[in-house]
């Protein structure tokens, strides 16, 4: 069920009504019921995976916590009465029991994710190594699988680390796992942030409610006006494209099976990939705005997921601003545990002794960031295109980390860091880099991607771009057809600039006391969505791209 569908509007309205008229104690139960209904719409049989993860994680966390509490409360007495060896044995036994429980929950949570999302890819690649062919199980991806699995893993690991006590109320925990605004494409929740919000009663707040609706409107504008206006340009490069050296000949041959295909040149690829960057960002962040807006109507704040990523000055900065809940999750549960491990500390010390401070500081973290970005790629999908997308990002970040002292030596004497032009250049350079890494995940296959790169750098073929423009009615007609995109981008850029430069980094705060301006903008957004929001044939503008992950 899309957030922008009639069924959802009915569900949302009914939930809101019950949420605020029933006693506040009932609020989590209303949200849980709504979340289950929402999930059942995606396909009743998929709820089994979600239910299994929820039940196993809930009980494992509770039992592991009780086990550790039982030992720690008895420890002072045991220490006094038992011989040291016996005390140590009991401590180890208790620790082992706890690890076993946590391990079992992780095995179930991650086991489902691996089996459903990655098994076809893993087995397929192994079988093909031996020359065979694996048809694949073709299991459909349950809605929100990656998101709720990460929510479950984060929760059980945090309880094991002693960061917080587990939730005792099963229904409230189930709500944390199933909360419908975050089910389509995140943000990935953290229990210590969202959990407590489910435990307190929420009184209806007009300001909060209208803020939520405004966010929904802004998200819908991003998705239905900007993302959908960029879609045709993206579809052109991902549609029926032929890149054989004799493509023109093959397409033109009488009775050719490629008659409906077209050739593509580097200039079109640059434009198309730029459009893809716009579509992906506005679709994903627009969907998140809608999710956050919906949640805010219930008085519940979700985690921040975007911070104007295309203003980033380098790729590390970009990943700190894009899909923040995923980057933060990977940092907390993969990067830091590895970086703070004893083995890692020994490796750093060894490098320091042999090669000096700089190598000891940069090489280990560079290796870790490569691992981290490979995981980012794997998270995005079980195919080589997505994995290589992650690896490319990791390699670029690794090289820039290793070369940073050299860059500083060049920049400092020239005082470049304070120049506005340099700041703009860095953002553009970051956009170009991320666009290039996306080619490999967006091309129909990895071998296509290599050819796309060749075309982008060596064969712009402006003649093909001119042909495409004249096929679509000439330059004036093409520019007119993209007016909604230009207008949408101008609005997005203005809002982003205001947010980036304001103290609170929020347009909401800027508009707080400006009622007339706010109403005018709201009316403009509604008109824009109604009049220029396009719903092209074969393109469902209300579809969330990131739902597939």
């Amino acid at each position, binding site marked *: 069920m899309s957030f922008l569908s009639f069924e959802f509007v009915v569900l949302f309205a009914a939930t809101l009504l019950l949420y605020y008229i029933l006693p506040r104690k009932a609020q989590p139960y209303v949200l849980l019921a709504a979340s289950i209904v929402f999930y059942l719409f995606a396909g009743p049989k998929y709820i089994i995976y979600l239910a299994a993860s929820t039940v196993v994680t809930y009980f494992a966390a509770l039992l592991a916590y009780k086990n550790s509490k039982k030992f720690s409360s008895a420890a002072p007495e045991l220490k006094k009465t038992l011989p040291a060896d016996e005390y140590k044995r009991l401590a180890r036994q208790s620790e082992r029991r706890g690890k076993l429980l946590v391990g079992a929950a992780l095995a179930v949570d991650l086991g489902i994710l691996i089996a459903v999302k990655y098994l076809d890819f893993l087995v397929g690649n192994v079988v093909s190594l031996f020359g065979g062919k694996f048809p694949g199980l073709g299991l459909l991806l349950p809605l929100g699988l990656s998101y709720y699995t990460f929510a479950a893993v984060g929760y059980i690991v945090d309880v094991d*680390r*002693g*960061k917080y006590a587990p939730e005792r109320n099963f229904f409230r925990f189930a709500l944390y796992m199933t909360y419908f605004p975050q089910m389509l494409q995140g943000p990935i929740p953290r229990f210590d942030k969202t959990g407590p919000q489910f435990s307190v009663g929420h009184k209806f707040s007009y300001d909060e409610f209208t803020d939520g609706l405004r966010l929904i409107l802004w998200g819908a504008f991003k998705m239905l006006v900007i993302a959908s206006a960029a879609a045709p340009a993206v579809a052109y490069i991902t549609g029926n494209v032929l890149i054989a050296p004799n493509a023109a000949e093959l397409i033109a041959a009488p009775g050719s099976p490629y008659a409906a295909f077209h050739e593509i040149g580097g200039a079109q690829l640059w434009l198309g990939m730029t459009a893809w960057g716009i579509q992906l960002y506005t679709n994903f962040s627009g969907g998140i705005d809608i999710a956050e807006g919906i949640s805010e109507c219930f008085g519940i704040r979700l985690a921040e997921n975007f911070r104007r990523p295309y203003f980033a000055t380098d790729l*590390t900065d970009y990943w*700190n601003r894009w899909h923040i809940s995923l980057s933060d999750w990977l*940092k*907390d549960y993969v*990067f*830091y*545990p590895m*970086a*703070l491990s004893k083995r890692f*500390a020994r490796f*750093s010390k060894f490098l320091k002794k042999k090669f000096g401070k700089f190598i000891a*500081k*940069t090489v*280990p*973290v560079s290796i*870790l*960031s490569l691992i981290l970005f490979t995981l980012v790629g794997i998270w995005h999908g079980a195919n080589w295109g997505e994995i290589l997308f992650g690896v490319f990002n990791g390699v670029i970040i690794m090289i820039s*980390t290793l070369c940073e002292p050299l860059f500083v030596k060049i920049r400092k004497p020239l005082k470049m860091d304070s120049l506005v032009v340099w700041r703009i250049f860095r953002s553009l350079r970051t956009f170009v880099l991320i666009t290039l890494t996306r080619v490999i995940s967006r091309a129909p296959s990895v071998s296509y991607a290599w050819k796309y790169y060749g075309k982008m750098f060596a064969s712009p073929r402006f003649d093909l771009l001119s042909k495409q423009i004249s096929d679509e009615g000439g330059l004036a007609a093409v520019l007119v057809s993209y007016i909604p995109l230009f207008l949408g981008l101008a609005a997005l850029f203005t809002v982003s600039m205001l947010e980036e430069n304001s103290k609170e980094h929020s347009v909401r705060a800027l508009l707080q006391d400006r009622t007339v301006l706010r109403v005018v903008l709201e009316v403009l957004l509604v008109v824009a969505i109604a009049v220029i929001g396009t719903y092209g044939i074969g393109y469902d503008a209300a579809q969330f791209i990131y739902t597939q992950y």
Partner: protein
Amino acid sequence: MTEKEQIIEILTDINPDIDYENETALIDGGLLDSFDIVTLVGELNDAFDITITVVDLVPENFNSADAMAALVLRLRD
């Protein structure tokens, strides 16, 4: 040399362009990134003979030199 002075020395070695004496948003303000944190934790562990764990890696413990000094004292106890 106090803990805070030692910490400022370590921090200056990592990034000399920050006023560690007065800065209170080293993490929240994005002045130290995750790579800096890893280096910093290694150095603090060595210098003060402590073990900083993942649970300690919250902004409140690393936003200022004072907060880090408090963390060091807490972990030493």
